[in-house]
């Protein structure tokens, strides 16, 4: 280990096998209160054709074993709570603890989605206030909080466009235009919404090419999906012109709001021509990513799309918020039970903490990204020189000369005590290093990161093997992905050798 590694050093980490390997008959981790009604026998209650004699493969372990098992596992993870998590496009910012507290209150966590609205006024007011805040932040007119994640928000948005076009033009049209810099969810979503995908090349500055757009937009195009700022962290200068071109052909502009952390309080998509967009509350609005979810993907729309919003729609009844199910033009329901309410609670708590001061968070996020860019641009290649907003994208062009690629640099970053940045995305940059620090990092943490990245650049030149074989300080070294995919072992099975599936 080199003395350049300042943020981390080795420490003992406990071994822990799958919990099934600790199981022994007769142990348990929960005791139930005694039954206060006459007991029944399952076979008699259900009939012998329908009964089961317990789940054979379930582990039998005590409470302390469960605590130790999952605590040990947790220590093998990196986390925002441990330091900077510079994954570009993921907006890994601080997850305020008070948000966790309020989401668990009795009267919040305990509420049933089908309970009468008379005893749900608190929940409804929370939904109303959050939707009003998101409307103000995005400059849109209305919205839905129902989608469970960004990808479902995208689908909801495209279904709204479909419904609008079918209703007003008698034809939902055929194609959705998607820039080559887009997230993979965009094209995957368009297909589920019943559209063909036409990939659109960006111009030499990685911006929307208005001339090309004019050529390809026709009456088959339903919409264009644009991420703004783009996945290069660059504001789309021509977004309003793109909206005009689309609108003049009767098509709509969808904005992927994954990068809203660069805009909140500074500029509003509703003002630059966006017709429909989604937000990722687990990005911009700080709800914890939890190792992969849950998230929430509210969709915000202009007035013209409001009649088609999924049910239930949050409306007002006698001056009070209410859920409305009777909406003849609605696209229907995209998820049962109205959405990830617990996530929405956390997002509102976040928004209330900042109020109008949310602009400061945006400014700090952009400041951090530009600071890192400035301090690293002499050692890492900057393929696009356009001004960065909340994230900066370098490439591994210089390090590749020594056989070191972006993934190697990312893995070496782990030894320096950081989570890697996003590797190999966006696709328009070969060997991308996509870095998004967010506003949650202090100058000191940014400096440590810069220092680590500069040290790795040196290592790539002087000792490439060290970088190519990183990480060197983790409990496991690089894992064999190829075998994992060729002979998948997707569940634990008794005996040491778990048998392979398909």
């Amino acid at each position, binding site marked *: 280990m080199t003395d350049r590694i300042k943020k981390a050093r080795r420490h003992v980490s406990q071994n822990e096998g*799958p919990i*099934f390997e600790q199981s022994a008959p007769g142990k348990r981790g*929960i005791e139930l209160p005694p039954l206060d009604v006459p007991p029944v026998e*399952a076979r008699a*209650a*259900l*009939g012998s054709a329908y009964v*089961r004699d*317990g789940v054979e493969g379930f*582990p039998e*372990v005590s409470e302390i074993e*469960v605590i130790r*098992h*999952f605590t040990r*596992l947790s*220590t*093998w*993870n*990196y986390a*925002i*709570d441990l330091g900077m998590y510079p994954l570009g496009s993921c907006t890994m910012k601080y997850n305020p603890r008070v948000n966790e507290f309020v989401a668990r209150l009795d*009267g919040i*966590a305990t509420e*049933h989605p*089908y309970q009468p609205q008379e*005893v*749900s006024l*608190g929940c409804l007011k*929370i939904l109303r206030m959050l939707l009003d805040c998101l409307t103000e932040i995005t400059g849109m007119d209305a919205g839905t909080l129902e989608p469970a994640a*960004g990808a*479902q928000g*995208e*689908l909801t948005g495209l279904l709204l466009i479909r419904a609008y076009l079918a209703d007003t033009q008698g034809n939902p049209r055929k194609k959705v235009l998607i820039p080559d810099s887009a997230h*993979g969810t965009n*094209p*995957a979503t368009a297909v589920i919404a019943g559209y063909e995908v036409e990939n659109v090349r960006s111009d030499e500055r990685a911006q929307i090419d208005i001339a090309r757009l004019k050529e390809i937009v026709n009456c088959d195009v339903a919409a264009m999906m644009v991420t703004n700022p783009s996945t290069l962290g660059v504001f789309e200068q021509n977004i309003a012109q793109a909206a005009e071109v689309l609108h003049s052909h009767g098509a709509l502009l969808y904005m992927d709001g994954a990068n809203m952390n660069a805009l909140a*309080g500074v500029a509003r998509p509703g003002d630059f021509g966006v017709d429909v967009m989604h937000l990722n509350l687990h990005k911009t609005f700080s709800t914890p*990513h939890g190792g*992969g979810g*849950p998230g929430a993907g509210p969709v915000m729309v202009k007035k013209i799309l409001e009649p088609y919003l999924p049910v239930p729609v949050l409306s007002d009844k006698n001056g009070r918020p209410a859920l409305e199910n009777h909406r003849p033009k609605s696209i*229907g*329901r995209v*998820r049962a039970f109205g959405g990830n309410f617990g996530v929405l609670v956390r997002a509102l*708590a976040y928004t*209330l*903490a*900042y*109020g*109008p001061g949310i602009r400061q*968070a945006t400014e700090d996020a952009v400041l951090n990204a530009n600071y890192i860019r*400035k301090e690293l641009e002499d050692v890492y290649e900057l393929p696009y020189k356009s001004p960065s907003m909340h994230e900066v994208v370098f490439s591994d062009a210089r390090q590749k000369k020594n056989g070191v690629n972006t993934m190697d640099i990312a893995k070496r970053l782990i030894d320096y005590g950081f*989570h890697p940045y996003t590797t190999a995305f966006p696709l328009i940059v070969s060997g991308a290093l996509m870095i998004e620090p967010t506003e949650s990092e*202090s*100058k000191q943490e940014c400096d440590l990161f810069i220092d680590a990245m500069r040290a790795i650049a040196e290592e790539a030149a002087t000792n490439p093997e060290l970088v190519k074989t990183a990480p060197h300080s*983790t*409990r*496991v*070294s690089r894992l064999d992905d190829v075998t*994992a*995919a060729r002979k998948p072992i997707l569940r634990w099975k008794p005996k040491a050798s778990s048998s392979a599936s398909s």
Partner: protein
Amino acid sequence: MRYLPKSPAERREMLESIGARSIDDLFASIPEQFRLKAPLELPGPLSEHEIIEYFRARAAENSCGYTSFLGAGVYNHLRSVVTDSLIQRGEFLTSYTPYQPEISQGTLQAIFEFQTLMCELTGMEVANASMWDGSTATTEAVLMAERLTGRYRVVVARSLHPEYRQVLDTYTRNLNLQIQEIGFTATGQIDAAQLETAIDSETAAVVVQSPNFFGVVEDVARLAELAHAKGALVVTAITEGVSLGAVRPPAEADIVAMEAQSFGLAPSYGGPYAGVIATRDKFVRQMPGRLAGETVDTEGRRGYVLTLATREQHIRREKATSNICTNQALCALAVAIHLCLLGKEGLKELAVQNLAKARFALEELEKVPGVRRAFSGPFFNEFVVELPRSVKLVNAELLREKIIGPLPLGSFFPELTKRALFCVTETTPRAEIERMTVALRKILSKPV
């Protein structure tokens, strides 16, 4: 602002390093006319204390102090402090999707254990790392069946949760899939005769929920025979996972789509929950969602990675099996922890307690004049009764007694007015069941 770790001097210092005169320079790439000139009109800023006060005030406007007999896809079950404190460890709570396995082994092994638990529970061979919820899992299971069979017709039990049916409808409307509904019989089970005639050589999937929306357990083995005879796949939806502690798993199904909310997740006014898709090994490459798999590192040590990613949107884009990216990882972790705590014996005892409570409640209800059981089929912890008058009116009166009454089925099934879906779990005290039946007797004895 307490979440922002910078002093004004540090901000100035950083701007200087960048060579910017002011922060506004960094936003110069946004065309001038789109830059906001005034602060947003938002409530706040609030201190931590004020945030808690605000949400406490909202909580007080909800149903605290009421006893509920609602289930219908969302269940009140015992949860544990152990689960909730473990999932709040920052290393789980504030970590990203485990794309970098060397520093995500905790999440990856936990997902691997979750997948194993879901297989054992459902009788399937492989399960994924979670879907958004039961409704979207059911829809994704249908889309998976379509890909596997290349067929376009889907036969759906009318006793599938109505909101699950609505979600399926929203998703499939533009995909040239034809949905046909199959009714139910006096047992509350799917009409097998009608089903048999409905399945043909273009049927991709038969979708049935068990226990179904009425709480009645279906004979999945028999339905699977009918479907498989015509080459169709069986998708079984499960909304009440606890049933699997006592009810035979749908082992004959081809795909199981489950809502795992019952295992340690709060009702939370609709979410977040945890959807599951489980299936047979041979179908794994058409599964949606993430999968954790076991492998070894360069030293031969056991470790876990996300695998078979060529099914997924970030690799395959428009050719992906699904657009799902973010799932419900932390909820799946809670489910896994909760099931480890319960273990084999605990889950069985929990399920049997639910059987007992529901039967006690039904017997008490049947003693009330004018109340009778609506369906004769085997049930778990939910059942339907017919009331002599409008369920909504009865519920309005129960609410005055601080009782949230059963679900009025008429709002989903026009043919089932005056039918009420009751749910009783281990969390419903006997005294509250008795208080409810006393109140109901009083309400029904009043002249209309």
